[in-house]
Structures are given as structure tokens and as C-alpha cells.
């Protein structure tokens, strides 16, 4: 018996076209595909308990404004940018600095070292707080580069800026974050990511 070839997954561009033609399932698939990355981005930016609502808002805004999506950056990067803007708007409305929520991270590792885990967690909380205090552009550039692993060209396209400016924002962000974590000696964190 021959097994029919599995159909290749539709690309983001095909799903976008599908949604624009009225296919609701295409929008659902796009959310499924990228929602966790958006949540991770927002979580790192200090969105805390607002992550779920902001993820929804970001996708809703993205679909509402698809006619402005030029395709110079990927759909995911574009939604990440909208998510960053949504977070900035939320903070502006509330008129306060981010509150970093404790999020119940657990280390599921056989070589679990409680002390190292506490230190690591404390550092991550400090870093998350410091990222949340960065100017929005620096925050977004830093996270897109360091967390999402994007090239400067794609970051620049997503944020409507130049590659040079994106590099400068990243440089300033790193400088500020280092200053915020100045008391942490070099090499105090694990050198290998065991998670």
C-alpha cells in the first residue's frame, strides 16, 4: 500500500492570502504558528500577567492592518513589533513601570543545583526588570536580536529603521543592561545552557 505524500504546510504568505480571501482557518493557523514566540518576547520584556491579553491584541491588530504588511520582514517579526508597541501603549496608559511577575519557572534537570538555580533565577529576574526599563526601541531591538536571533537587516525592516540605527540601539541596550547588572561578576552564570 502506498502512503500518499503529506501535503507541505502552507507558508505564512499563503496563509495570509487565505485570510485575506476570507478563510478564517488561515488566521487560526497563523496564530497557532507564532503565538508562543510572541508570548516569549512579551514575557522577556516584562509583560507579566498581561502576556495573554497582549498576544491576542498583537494578532488582532496584525490581522486588522495586514494591508500595511509589506513583507520586508517575516510575519512573525512584524507581529513581534506590534506586540512591542502594544506593551508600550499599555504601560503608557497605566503610567507606570513594568512589574515583573514571578512566573514559577522550574528547572527540570537531573543535575539540579538549588543554589545555582536560585542565583540563575535571580539574575534572570534582574535582567528581565532591566529589559523592561529600556526605551521601547532598544528593548525591541535587543530582544529581537538576542532572544529571537534575528539579523540586523530583518530587525531594521521590522522596526522601520536602518541597519546602522538598529546596531546602535542594540549597543546602547547592551551597555545599559550591563550597567544594570554591574554587580554580577563575569562567569557567575552557567556557561552552557542546560535547559
Amino acid at each position, binding site marked *: 500500500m502506498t502512503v500518499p505524500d503529506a501535503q507541505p504546510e502552507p507558508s505564512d504568505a499563503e496563509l495570509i492570502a487565505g485570510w485575506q480571501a476570507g478563510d478564517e482557518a488561515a488566521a487560526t493557523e497563523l496564530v497557532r504558528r507564532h503565538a508562543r514566540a510572541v508570548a516569549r518576547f512579551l514575557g522577556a520584556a516584562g509583560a507579566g500577567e498581561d502576556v495573554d491579553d497582549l498576544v491576542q491584541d498583537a494578532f488582532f491588530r496584525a*490581522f486588522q492592518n495586514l494591508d500595511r504588511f509589506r513583507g520586508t520582514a517575516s510575519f512573525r517579526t512584524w507581529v513581534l513589533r506590534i506586540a512591542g508597541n502594544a506593551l508600550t501603549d499599555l504601560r503608557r496608559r497605566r503610567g507606570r513601570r513594568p512589574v515583573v511577575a514571578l512566573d514559577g519557572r522550574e528547572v527540570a534537570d537531573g543535575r539540579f543545583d538549588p543554589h545555582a538555580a536560585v542565583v540563575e533565577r535571580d539574575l534572570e529576574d534582574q535582567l528581565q526588570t532591566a529589559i523592561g526599563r529600556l526605551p521601547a526601541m532598544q528593548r525591541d531591538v535587543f530582544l529581537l536580536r538576542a532572544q529571537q536571533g534575528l539579523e540586523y537587516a530583518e530587525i531594521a525592516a521590522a522596526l522601520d529603521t536602518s541597519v546602522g540605527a538598529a546596531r546602535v540601539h542594540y549597543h546602547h541596550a547592551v551597555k545599559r543592561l*550591563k550597567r544594570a547588572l554591574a554587580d554580577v561578576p563575569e562567569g557567575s552564570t552557567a556557561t552552557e545552557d542546560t535547559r
Partner: protein
Amino acid sequence: MNERELTRMAQGLGRAAADGLDVERTAAAVTARLRAERVRHRPRPVARWLALAAGFAVLLAGTAVTFGDHGAVPRVQPVALAPGLDDLSPAELGELLDSLQWQAPVSLDVGTTLGELDGTQLEELLALMEG
């Protein structure tokens, strides 16, 4: 802390938020909002008819005022039409009157048009429409 450590730590941030997200619920919520927004922006015939009816009332009021000022002699004056009324065909206007459940005053002859009404007749008509 050096840049490499900083980047490594940044890569680990937000994982709990990502793991905690109910993707299916999020997708359902987003599509529900999009659906609601599409429905909200869909042109609704009832709303269009209501707008037309309001415009029709403005037309009648304007006509009555014009005739009231000058007795029974109609003076031709521009009457501000509500948007949408001026491009209606006679058939569509007839449909509009039907939708308002308007009945001609007894004193009006069948086939009378608005332009042929005198001030009293228009007042009767307005009174009827106002209920």
C-alpha cells in the same frame, strides 16, 4: 557580566510565558474578535433604511417650512437632502414609504406627488409620519 552571558540569559527569558500560553484559546479568541469586527463593519440594510427614513423626514420638514412661509404658493427653494435620498429612484422611494408603513392622507388623491402638495396637506402628512 559580559555580552555573551547577557545574550545567553536573554534567550532563556519568557519561556514560562510561552509555555503557559493556551495557544488554542488564544487562536479562538483572536478569530472571534476578527469575526465580530467583520460583522460590525458589514453594511446593514436596516441601518441604511433607517438613515434613509431620517433623511426623508428632513426632506418633508424642509418642504413644509418652505411652503409654510409663503402660504399656498410653492416657492422653489433648494432643500437639503439627506445623503442617499437624492439618488433614489421613484421605485426606491416607494419602497422607503412602504417600509415606513406610510399611508396617504384621505384628502390626497392617488398619484399625488410631493411637489403637488399644498401646505395643509404637507402638515397632514408630517403629522401622520410623526404619529
